[in-house]
């Protein structure tokens, strides 16, 4: 099966008065049809910038320096704005970070979904579109009677569900969910994520989840890409990432989240701060914070290579240790 989405060497910089902020610096990954990928990293590591590059919804001062984004065989970066508008929502739809504010307050929620349907499928009548919204509401667990209500009449969880319904409106091949549940409480968060995973399986769509919370992502995504300072440092299926993380940063991330079932142990935080992307370190970007760093790490950038089957990593000193103690307890 060939890849639905293939990103090759994407570099996207923000021009600021102080210079270029290298927000995305050589990101490559592939996503097959029906597959779900989790993009994980700290705030400001470029996750959202990758998503916005795919949608071509970048801020005015953002510049794509190089790279290709192939979606369904077409390079999105070469399309005209008009052609891109056809890909948006019909090919790739998106669930935004701030779902609370993603709906226009002055229009009925149902009408905002219908708008997307009719824009992309002009042959659909208003009544047919309403029927489809009704079905979508049922799919995401909302009362179809609420489609004529305004966003302020919805609760946070309902808005999130409505936005998921909206993202499904045109049967896209890929949905990018950027921190889809960050604004919700933990119980609703879990419900919504399971719902999304269920719908994704049912409709056989591809999905990119973006989150800073690796534990949340691991539940729903088949593959995980760990981003650090504008680069992907480790990429594999979520099981491998969880059981056998090889990159020191991934290992650090794992131990900075509590395990509910595991034994009580102090959470280990990663010392230091992510580098300033205006002027990133010369070698490995994680080297200044890495306990295993040597001279080569500070001097030369590690190549991004496959060390195991479907397990990519960018590190001079991959760590082979299993997270033994915790696994035994679990």
């Amino acid at each position, binding site marked *: 099966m060939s890849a639905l989405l293939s990103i090759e060497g994407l570099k996207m910089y923000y021009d600021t008065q102080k210079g270029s902020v290298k927000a995305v610096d050589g990101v490559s990954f592939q996503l097959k049809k029906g597959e779900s990928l989790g993009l994980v990293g700290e705030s400001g590591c470029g996750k959202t910038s990758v998503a916005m590059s795919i*949608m071509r*919804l970048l801020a005015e001062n953002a510049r794509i320096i190089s790279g290709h984004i192939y979606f369904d065989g077409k390079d999105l970066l070469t399309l005209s*704005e008009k052609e*891109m*508008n*056809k*890909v*948006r*929502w*019909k090919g790739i*739809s*998106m669930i*935004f*970070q*701030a779902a609370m*504010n*993603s*709906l*226009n*307050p*002055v229009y*009925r929620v149902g009408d905002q979904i*219908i*708008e*997307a349907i*009719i*824009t*992309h499928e002009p042959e659909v009548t*208003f009544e047919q579109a309403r029927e489809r919204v009704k079905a979508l509401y049922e799919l995401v667990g909302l009362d179809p009677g609420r489609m004529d209500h*305004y966003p*302020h009449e919805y609760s946070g969880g309902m808005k999130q569900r409505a936005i998921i319904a909206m993202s499904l409106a045109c049967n896209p091949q890929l949905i990018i969910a950027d921190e889809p549940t960050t604004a919700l409480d933990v119980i609703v968060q879990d419900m919504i994520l399971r719902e999304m995973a269920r719908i994704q399986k049912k409709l056989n769509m591809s999905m990119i989840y973006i989150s800073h919370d690796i534990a949340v992502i691991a539940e729903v995504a088949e593959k995980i890409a760990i981003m650090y300072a504008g680069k992907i440092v480790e990429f594999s299926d979520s099981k491998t990432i969880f059981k056998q993380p090889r990159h020191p940063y991934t290992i650090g991330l794992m131990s900075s989240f509590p395990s509910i079932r595991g034994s009580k142990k102090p959470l280990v935080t990663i010392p230091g701060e992510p580098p300033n992307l205006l002027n990133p370190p010369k070698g490995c970007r994680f080297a200044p914070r890495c306990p295993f760093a040597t001279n080569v790490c500070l001097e030369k950038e590690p190549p991004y290579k496959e060390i195991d089957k479907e397990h990519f990593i960018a590190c001079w000193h991959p760590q082979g240790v299993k997270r033994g103690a915790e696994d035994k307890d679990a």
Partner: protein
Amino acid sequence: MGKYIGKRLFQIVILLVIYIAVVFFILHAMPGGMKALFISNPRLTPEAQQAILKAFGLDKPPLTQFLIYMRNSFTLNFGVSFSHYPTPVWEIIKERLPRTALLFITATIISFLIGFHSGKVLAWKRGKAVEYVSTIGGVVAYTIFTPVLAFLLIWFFGAYLRLFPLNQFLNPDLWANTSFSSQVIFLRLLLTASIIGAVILVALILSYRLSHNIRSRRLIFYIPTISSVVIAVFIWWKSPYGIYGADILWHMVLPVVEVTIISYAGIMLVMRDSMLETVKEDFITTARAKGLPDRVVRDKHAARTALLPVITNFIISLGFTLSGGIITETLFSWPGMGLAMYEAVISHDYPLAAGCLIFTGIFVLFAHLVVDIVYAFLDPRIRY
């Protein structure tokens, strides 16, 4: 909605009582008090003085006087004008109010439409030369001293180009031999404008109710709008009054331009600002991500939401526009409420001045009511 309008009307009545009380207080605070102001005019005969004294209870204690004044105000009895003796104040206001209303409503609608659209387009073209030039132009128009603008307009269009007449609201030579008064024609003009306005409003509402397709919506809106205008022009053209109506409209152009320029700039600047804020909102990103054409994102999503603060600002500025109206009407000799008030003040015609003051207040309060109702339609978050 009906309940809300009822509630607002009730509030307006309370505000009006307070407002009239303030006017009453001001009249009493003047040298000599209200008694001196209302009857101390050499033109009044002793009988007339007695009549006014009795009608306003000016020989009674202040509280009784206040209640009588309140009752008189609500029954439109404002006394007799000194300068137009013996015309009652209400007769003068009845004649002048429609003229001011037409002038301001026309200017407001034009400035709102232009200001809204230009502010919207400018914000969308942020950073381009057009934006800087227009914004600076807007700030100049917003801060210009009203009389200076009036003099510029009078000099350029009236005296230099001789495109527009300079004085009054009609051409006396033309009207010399007519059997009807100018007021008759003026009221018919006002009636025509109201009918066209109502048709446009109904067409707008129907276009949204009946159709979900942009093209058919436009048809439903534009066909009645254009045809009502064409029919109105045709009827005036064929009727013997056509030339007189045109004469009044011709005289109206410059004052309307003046008021339009002054209120346009404010609306444009606020709209531009509000639009710049709105485009940063997440739902604009959503609209773009949905693959909507640029124009739809701008007009349907950004401008529609950005409109709300503009309307709030507009309510606040209404009072200022009216006070600017006194200057405009005086400089263009447009015989409306503003000019009547100015003349009344200059000639110590206190009953007329007080009457004009009260009616200006009523006008502003009702304008607020209209804007509040419009706002409730535009913002679904406001429910009553």
